Every structure is written in C-alpha cells, then in structure tokens.
C-alpha cells in the first residue's frame, strides 16, 4: 500500500496508450458493464488489486477505471467494470466487442492483500464501489486458507443495482464466506435487508485485534462505514479506503487529483483511514 508500489515505470512514454481490444461485455445493471480487454500488441505489466488503468476512447477522452478482475491472467487481459456517468465512461460502456481502446497503467497503490494474510477480512462496498473490491474477494478466494473469516457487506440503491449478482449469489451460498447484502430502497420480491450499509455492519461481531477492512464507495459512505468500524474497536491503521478524484494523466503530472497533501493517482487510490480521515472531512477539499 506504499507509494513505492506505484513507482514501477511502466513505459518510456507513460502518456501513450497501448491498444487493447474489447473481447467481451457483461451487462451488470442498467448503467454498468464489465468489459474484458485483451492486448492488441504487447500487454501492459500485470495490474494488482486496487490499481487502475487510464482507458482511452480515441477522439472522446480517457477515464481512470479500477481493475475489477482477479489475479492477472497469463494472456494479459484486463477486466474493468464501467458505469456510464459521463462522456468517456458512456463511450466505454457502449463499446461493442471488437472495439480497440487505449490503455495505460498499472497506476496507483494496491489493496495490499498480502499484508492482511492470516486475519479476518471485512469488505464493505457501496454501489459501484464493489467493482474495485472484487479483486480483493477473488484474491482471498484464490487462497482461502490464507485468511481467517471473510465478510462482505455490500449496499446498493435497489436490488437491481447490485453488480456481479451471479457471483454474489454464489458467494452467499458458501459456508466459508459471510455475505450481507442490503438495499437503500427495496423492490417487489426483495426479502433481504433494507437499510444503509452501516446497519448490517453494525450487527457484525468483529475481532479488533485481527481484522483488516477494505472500503470502497462514495466518500460519505466510506466515512460512515469507517466510523462504524472504529466504534467496533477496529484501529484506523487496519481500515483501507479507495479514493477517487478527477484524473487526467494518472501519473502525477496534471495536478487534477490533488486531495490536500496527496495525489490520489500516486499516493492512492488506496489509502489508510488515518491519512484519509482529515482529508474527507474538510469541505470542498
């Protein structure tokens, strides 16, 4: 999770995208899709959980998208879940199979799963924040014996807006993972919990000595969830957040992603709660 992770120089021309082709699209919700991208030429170096790529749609623009896939596959494929919220993400979201996009990366700090080995892992996701956290779950499941309890608490706006629903169902069915899904607004046919993500979080009984928490979602959701974890005795040093800010370059040169003393692309997006807390509470920082 140190910025040393992002010190790997990825290319002689770090602003030059490398061509990647869309080889599959899975519609997750009404406005989110998971894209699988395969290198058209040489692959980029392997991406680790928590890192992001700058994905380019020529003539439209670039967006910073976290990886949402598992440990790097041998063919160098990239998996990203994109929500259509702006011009570039809409273009990425709509890109048909076969489209050649540009990719740059890997950039940013990682969730640093190895440092949490042997502990209880609490994954707290809000909305599309589940996407950057999926690699954490996949990383844990790839080596389940290396971790103690694994708990996933995921909130979504409505039942239809959960990402990765098939996988969520599969994980819920496993005896070795505890899954709590909750919605802000129920819909017909939903028998599950209704309430903000901090409510199932509050009901968990956690071991403060041996728990690492991974949080991702809108800033206020991460703040409220972190406060709930602190109330349960989890030390700030064991709470990790994935931050997001406007990014133009992804490599610490354009200045857009500044958040107080840090550059989110270089010192984040994954940061410890002790560092993040004062930054998230200053208005319009």
């Amino acid at each position, binding site marked *: 999770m140190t910025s040393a992770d992002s010190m790997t120089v990825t290319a002689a021309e770090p*602003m030059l995208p490398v061509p990647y082709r869309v080889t599959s699209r899975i519609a997750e919700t009404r406005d989110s899709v998971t894209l699988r991208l395969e290198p058209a030429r040489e692959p980029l170096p392997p991406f680790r959980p928590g890192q992001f790529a700058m994905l380019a749609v020529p003539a439209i623009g670039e967006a910073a998208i976290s990886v949402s896939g598992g440990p790097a596959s041998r063919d160098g494929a990239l998996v990203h879940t994109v929500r259509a919220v702006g011009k570039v993400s809409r273009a990425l979201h709509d890109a048909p199979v076969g489209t050649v996009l540009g990719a740059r990366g890997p950039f940013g700090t990682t969730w640093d799963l190895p440092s949490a080995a042997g502990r209880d892992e609490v994954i707290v996701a809000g909305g599309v924040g589940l996407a950057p956290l999926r690699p954490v779950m996949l990383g844990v499941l790839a080596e389940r014996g290396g971790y103690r309890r694994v708990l996933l608490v995921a909130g979504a706006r409505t039942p239809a807006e959960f990402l990765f629903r098939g996988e969520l169902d599969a994980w819920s069915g496993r005896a070795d993972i505890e899954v709590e899904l909750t919605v802000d607004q129920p819909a017909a046919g939903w028998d599950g919990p209704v309430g903000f993500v901090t409510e199932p979080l509050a009901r968990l009984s956690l071991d403060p000595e041996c728990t690492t928490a991974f949080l991702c979602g809108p800033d206020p959701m991460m703040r409220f969830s972190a406060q709930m974890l602190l109330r349960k005795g989890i030390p700030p040093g064991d709470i990790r957040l994935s931050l997001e800010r406007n990014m133009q370059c992804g490599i610490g040169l354009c200045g857009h992603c500044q958040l107080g003393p*840090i550059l989110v692309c270089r010192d984040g997006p994954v940061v410890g709660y002790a560092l993040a807390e004062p930054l998230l509470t200053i208005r319009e920082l």
Partner: protein
Amino acid sequence: MHAVWLATVTAPGAADAVIFGREGLDRLVEVLIADDYQVIGPTVRDSAIVLDKLDSAAGLPAGWGVDTAPGRYRLRQREDAAVFANSAGPQSWKQFLHPPRRQLWSAGPDGEFRPAGPVSPRYAFLGVRGCDLAAIGILGRVLGRVAHPDGSFTRAWQGLFVVAVNCTEPGGVCFCASMGTGPAAGPGYDLALTEQIDASGHWFVAETGSEEGARLLAEIPCRPASAGEVASARTDVDAAAHRMGREMPAVDLRALIQDSMESPHWEDVANRCLTCANCTMVCPTCFCTTTEDVSDLTGEHAGRWQRWASCFEPDFSYMHGGGVRQSGASRYRQWFSHKLGTWHDQFGSSGCVGCGRCIAWCPVGIDITAEAARLAELAQQAQEERE
C-alpha cells in the same frame, strides 16, 4: 545545465570570475546561436518585457525598468542602458519547458497510437533571475525527477543552457529574499552574470557554473575580475536583498495552512478574488494541465493534446456531476495551500519562489504575502483566545 543537477557545483570564488563589457554580451548571444542554441531572453513588446527568441543581444530591453505593485505593471525609461535592471515580466521560462499546448499522440484508423514528435529546440535562456532559476528547479522536481517523468519537459530541461543574472534591481512586488531564492542566483546555471553600470562604463561580472558554461565563456573576450570588482558586485546583490518590495512572513507556512483550512479568511479572499486564473498563468511553477481529445470529421483520425489548466477553473475538480471545489473560496484555498503548504508534502519544497508575478497580475491586487500574514495573524489571535 549538463550534469549540473547531479554534480556538486563548487561555489565560484574570485578566481573564477571574469569581466566582459557590453559587447561581450553581444558576443555571448552570437556564440550561443552559432552553437545551435535557440536563445530566449527578455525583450520589450506590447508595453511589457516578455521572453522571446533573440537573434542578437540588441533585442534586450536596454534602458528599461519596471514599476510593479499589486495589480500594476508599467515600463519606465531608465537613465542608463542597463539590460537586466527590471523584475519579472508576465511570462516565465516555464512556457518553453512546459508549453501551453502540445500534442501527446495521434491515432489513425489502424488503431495505432503514435507519440507526437519532440517540439522543443535546444534552448539557451539568457537573463534567468534567482527566483526563476529556483522555479526551473522546482519544475524539475515536479515533472522530471518522478516515477513517470514528462518526456518533453525532461528533454528540454536536460538540453538547457542557462545564463542567470544576479539581481540588483528588485521590484515592488518581489520577495525572493524571504523565500530563499534570490536575489543571488542559486545553483543550476551554466553562467551567472552580475550587471554593473555607472558613469565609468557598462560591464558584467561573470561566473561559470558548469563545464559547458566555461567552454562558451572561453569564446568571449574577457579578463579576470579583481577581488574588488567581485566584492562590488556582491555588495550590489546583497543590497538588493534589503530593498525587496515585501516579504513572506517567517512562519512555518505548511503548519499554519494545515491549521487554517477552515479559517473564515478564505471567504474574505473570495469576496475579492475573481477566480480569473491569472496568477496560475503567470506563476513560474504552476504546472497543472488538462488533456483534450480531438478528431477530424471522419472520426478516423484522433489526437490528444495537453494544455495548461488552472485549479481556479470551476471544472478542474469535476467528478460525479459537479466540481468538488465549487466555491471561489475553496479554489483560492486550493491554490494558496498547495503553493505554500502541500507542495512540501508532494514535492519536498515550497512551490513559491517569491517572484511576485501573481501580485502584479492579479486584477484586484491580491497579495499572497499579505494573505499569508493575515492567516498568521488570525492563527495568533485564535491561539491567544484559547489561552
């Protein structure tokens, strides 16, 4: 500049200094041009002293001085023919090392991304003051010595030849002394000149700062400087340190700013600040950029360009449907707290060199040193109230 940043520059002593006359300066420019450098230096244009390509030293602003104050910059005719007796103009050297607009790549229908070719010639900067030399060094720490350097900047920076000038004529808005960047030029030059002009003549005390500097100096007719001549030049520069127009308060700015993020003072500035972004354009260390994607009508040929941006732009921090920093107060706070505070955290030094350009070119005359002093005052008051 060759290897200067990596090698230890020995402080030039009296033994290194030489003297050449006004015609020596002409010869210096000729020699640089003959050596395939594009010489950039100050010249008068549009009622200001701007930086531009020089074909000869005749283009230098001989006999021109400037009057500067918050929101004010005027040329005035001097009684002598000094060429460097004027403080910072509206532009800085960053426009050559970090151009306002440059192409990053182009892409054709074949799906290949091609990097744009290098744009900068080999530059020789003539007349770089201490503040601006420090600013070039700061840009080097921001864009050059990082995990992913800006290739275009690095190429221009590494090939640079710098003729610095030790300042003897500080301006009304200057505060380099309190920022530790002048009036004497710090390390990083190939040649440093101190202009001397009086009834007996017009000459320059020149010191070398690199092998390349020495090599070029050898082509100019000059004679060794006497100890007295060197001392006289030093005295003029030291005197300039005491004639600064203003000074930054001598407090731990980084800590002060960290404690002042919720200060009511930002609203006070916001009532005056137009968020016009002039300060970021004239500042020699502001480096922020934005990318722009363009294409032709067919959509088959696309390109990406990089242009200067400013944290004062409302959409600079755009995310999730709106800017994070929407109020003018938050945007001024961002610029100020970054320049004087969090720059330390991000790049290991202050971002301000005390050139005063932001004060002169602010249409409403906001003075960064006065704002810092006011913050310090408010913090002091709050401290007293607590006790």
